[in-house]
């Protein structure tokens, strides 16, 4: 076998090539997707960080106190004073939406990171070792795959009770198996490459080979999958939030706001549309960015 195509250098050189393709301006159309999607994501992440830090420092960044009632008239239409109107008890909807930004972003990143960490360790070990552990893992993921994850998360969150941390936990329980399955498949692809086998022959232990040679080579695929998946997690989170499983009122959360404002569809139809549109906008950002990343890195 040709050492050049399959040696330890191959992965490294390929990765450098990929970086070049990202910055080299070869794929202008694809770069545009990365820029647009990345811009939307950056906006949400920075906003979330600013809001979170300011909340910790007790500085108010929102135009009004998001949980204070009576800062405006009841069910006022959008105006310059209240960009997205006010709700029944006169709270500023724009302030509430901004105040809720850290929830969605944090849950998206935490759930995906933990799912990826668990999935990567379990999946690469199973794929690399094969045999009984592999068999057990695959049957377990089969079970999780057959279960609609959101519905299972609803059941778990219902059992645990409402709250952001419980919701995060419920999502994590159902979210890791797809990462384990992907990591296993990708591990199988590299497990018999020359550079992995020579590392094994040189006397490195299973753990060492997985950490040093397997994971670095499957990481990119996992990252692309995770980026695309972030949007899905945010949709799932907003669904749980819509069902009243996230924060307890008067704290604000996007999904929960849609559920509450739905009651005023006749008198103030815009109320429910704003938080819903914000969720959609965030997810669109992640979808576009993930698509762009996938094309640019040529990972299927």
């Amino acid at each position, binding site marked *: 076998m040709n050492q050049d195509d399959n040696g330890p250098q191959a992965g490294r050189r390929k990765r450098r090539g990929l970086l070049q393709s990202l910055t080299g301006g070869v794929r202008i159309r694809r770069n545009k997707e990365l820029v647009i999607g990345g811009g939307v994501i950056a906006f949400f992440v920075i906003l979330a960080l600013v809001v979170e830090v300011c909340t910790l420092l007790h500085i108010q960044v929102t135009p009004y106190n998001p949980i204070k009632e009576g800062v405006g008239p009841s069910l006022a239409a959008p105006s310059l004073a209240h960009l997205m109107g006010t709700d029944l008890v006169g709270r500023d909807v724009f302030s509430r939406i901004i105040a809720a930004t850290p929830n969605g972003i944090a849950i998206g990143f935490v759930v995906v990171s933990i799912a990826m960490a668990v999935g990567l360790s379990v999946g690469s070990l199973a794929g690399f070792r094969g045999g009984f552990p592999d068999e057990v893992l695959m049957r377990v993921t089969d079970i999780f795959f*057959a279960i609609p994850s959101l519905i299972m998360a609803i059941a778990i969150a219902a059992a645990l009770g409402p709250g952001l941390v419980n919701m995060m936990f419920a999502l994590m329980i159902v979210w890791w198996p797809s990462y384990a399955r992907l990591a296993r498949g990708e591990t199988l692809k590299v497990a018999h490459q020359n550079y992995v086998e020579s590392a094994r022959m040189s006397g490195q232990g299973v753990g060492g080979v997985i950490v040093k040679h397997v994971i670095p080579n499957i990481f990119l695929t996992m990252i692309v999958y995770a980026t695309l998946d972030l949007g899905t997690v945010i949709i799932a989170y907003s669904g749980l939030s*819509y069902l009243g499983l996230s924060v307890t009122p008067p704290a604000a959360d996007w999904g929960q706001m849609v559920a509450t404002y739905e009651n005023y569809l006749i008198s103030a139809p815009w109320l429910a549309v704003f938080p819903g549109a914000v969720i959609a906008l965030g997810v669109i950002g992640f979808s576009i960015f993930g698509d762009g990343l996938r094309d640019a890195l040529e990972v299927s």
Partner: protein
Amino acid sequence: MNLVSYVLRRLLLALFVVLGVLTFTFILAHSLGNPIHAWLGKAAALHPELVSLYVAKYHLNDPFYVQYYYYVVGLLGGNLGYSPSRGFEPVIQIIGQTLPNTLQVAIFAIVLTLVLGIVLGIAAAFYHKKPIDVGIRAFYLAGYSSPPFFVALVLLIVFVYFLHLLPTSGSAAAGLSPPRPITTLPIVDSLLEGDYTYFWSSLQHVILPSLALALTTFGIVTRILRSAMLDVMHSNFIMTARAKGLDERTVFLKHGFRNAMIPVVTISSLVVTWLLTGTVFVENIFSYPGMGQYVVQALLAQDYPGVLAVTLIYAIMIVITNLVADLLYAAFDPQVRLG
């Protein structure tokens, strides 16, 4: 491996998965502390006779494995508990009333997803990189990036409050008596019995919920079909078809489309999973009396028997979908069952 042993293996796996789901709901029921809560809800204390009945029937004072055995046996006998949010009506009875409505919405949503997904997928590939392609892409990105409850809400506002076109809630106009169950699906039954008033009314009621779902899922089909079409159009047999002198439309639809549908079949079970999950939200917004609406009410009332039972039923539906999809796939593509 021949087809028979493949089918047997898939059936066995499906059974195994259902058992896994049972175990999962069992663990959840026990994670609530006293499983009595899981089966009777927090209002259990109001009904001491039901509590003692349950303790005896499910051997709740015995070790876990004994409880597990009686739990599974109970489920197999159709005992899903009693729903505190609906006056302790047996959950199995509520499922019997609500499941057909959910199936109706899901079936219509599948049809709409396929129609929208295929038509737009072909159009996007045919007008590759033209404004139509870009427009379709924006449309499906917006669709599948939106939570189902948001799409449902927008449809509700547009169709119901601005256009005054379609009914807002329920599964048929109030006052109409439902048809006798033949297939249990009210729309089909009313048609079979010639009750056209009911048929028309229930058809009007099912459109918006299923359209809301379809708008969130058609993008999966469109995207896969578009890229598969673009791939297929570069293959040798397409060149041959063109060389024969067939016009581009025929080549595209007859030769390209047929082959590009294979990856769409592969992801069909994913689409159905999304649709079924979406019914929870969409039924709630359109007050459609299906299982999704029931589970939300149960959730708000901390009615655990309802939540756990519906989880189980949804999971079984997904298992069946996956099984059917795998078997169909094996029937169409010999490589699967041989490989």
